[in-house]
């Protein structure tokens, strides 16, 4: 991943008004405005434990360089005056990575890389608000690291699909073993994917979206 330009680079970027640099310098070439035709902005959460490949998958699909916001876990009630300048060790900051991809003329899909550990619960509902569903990434080398995430997703009521991000040294399990281990409902999609690969990542998102369509109209199946 390319490193961000240093702040001294940005301070000298042409076209950035001096007033903007006091708060946050943004080089104009970094700004990817939405297409004028964008009318429906939808969101899918890409969740899973640390290191499972959420950002990799988002990067594989996003048409913009993935961005991130910094979220403060102490920000339970979204109080702005609690957010910044707090440097004590009890404040945890977590980066939410996200990407964006245009789907046809009017639909724009956002992928939010959302940590799923229990301690992120205060943030979860705010980030999940309005999401179509969640893609839960699982590393079969450490299945138990996904239990928290699955619990959080299920409690939030968000429909989801499970994608096993394939690591070369992972043990092979049967689908039945995995479903039992993860305690999945029979109709919850379970697919394998390679988060580094665009087609494979898109396929795992498609399995989720098809699941969303199916559950909206079960009579049509």
């Amino acid at each position, binding site marked *: 991943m390319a490193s961000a330009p240093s702040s001294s680079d940005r301070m000298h970027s042409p076209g950035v008004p001096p*007033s903007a640099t006091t*708060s946050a310098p943004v080089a104009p070439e970094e700004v990817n405005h939405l297409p004028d035709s964008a009318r429906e902005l939808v969101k899918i959460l890409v969740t899973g434990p640390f290191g499972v490949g959420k950002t990799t998958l988002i990067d594989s699909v996003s048409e913009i360089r993935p961005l991130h916001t910094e979220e403060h876990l102490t920000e339970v009630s979204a109080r*702005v005056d609690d957010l910044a300048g707090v440097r004590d060790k009890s404040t945890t900051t977590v980066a939410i990575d996200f990407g964006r991809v245009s789907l046809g003329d009017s639909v724009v899909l956002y992928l939010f890389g959302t940590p799923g550990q229990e301690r992120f619960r205060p943030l979860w509902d705010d980030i999940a608000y309005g999401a179509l569903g969640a893609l839960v990434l699982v590393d079969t080398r450490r299945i138990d690291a996904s239990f928290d995430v699955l619990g959080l997703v299920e409690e939030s009521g968000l429909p989801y699909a499970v994608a096993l991000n394939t690591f070369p040294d992972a043990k092979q399990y049967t689908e039945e073993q995995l479903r039992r281990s993860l305690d999945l409902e029979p109709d919850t999609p379970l697919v394998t994917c390679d988060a580094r690969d665009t087609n494979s990542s898109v396929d795992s998102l498609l399995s989720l979206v098809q699941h969303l369509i199916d559950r909206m109209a079960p009579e049509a199946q």
Partner: protein
Amino acid sequence: MTGRRSGRPLVPAYLSTGGVARPSRNSLERLSVLTGAGGPPPAGLPSAQAALLGLLDGGSLTVMESAALLRLPVSAVRVLAAALIDQGLVSARPPVPPAALPDRDLLKRVADGLRALKL
């Protein structure tokens, strides 16, 4: 999920909003679309508001993207955007028109769009 990639901003978020803790309107979601009204920014606009307005010069961005680019918390951008909306400098619309909320047709278009991404 990765660690911090950049240093903490020099100006803390609560100063960027002039100490205002809550937005003047509650309708701004992470994916609400902000659009600049165009025209020169008024003199004396607080610098953080001017920075957000500058981002929206000539195009639209979501609240989430604005926060990421300005390196400010989403909640601070909600405050800044609401102030700009109150001044008529920015307009906002919800991510999805209320009538289109997740329906089968929208989901099918998402699926079709994803299929079209495959190489």
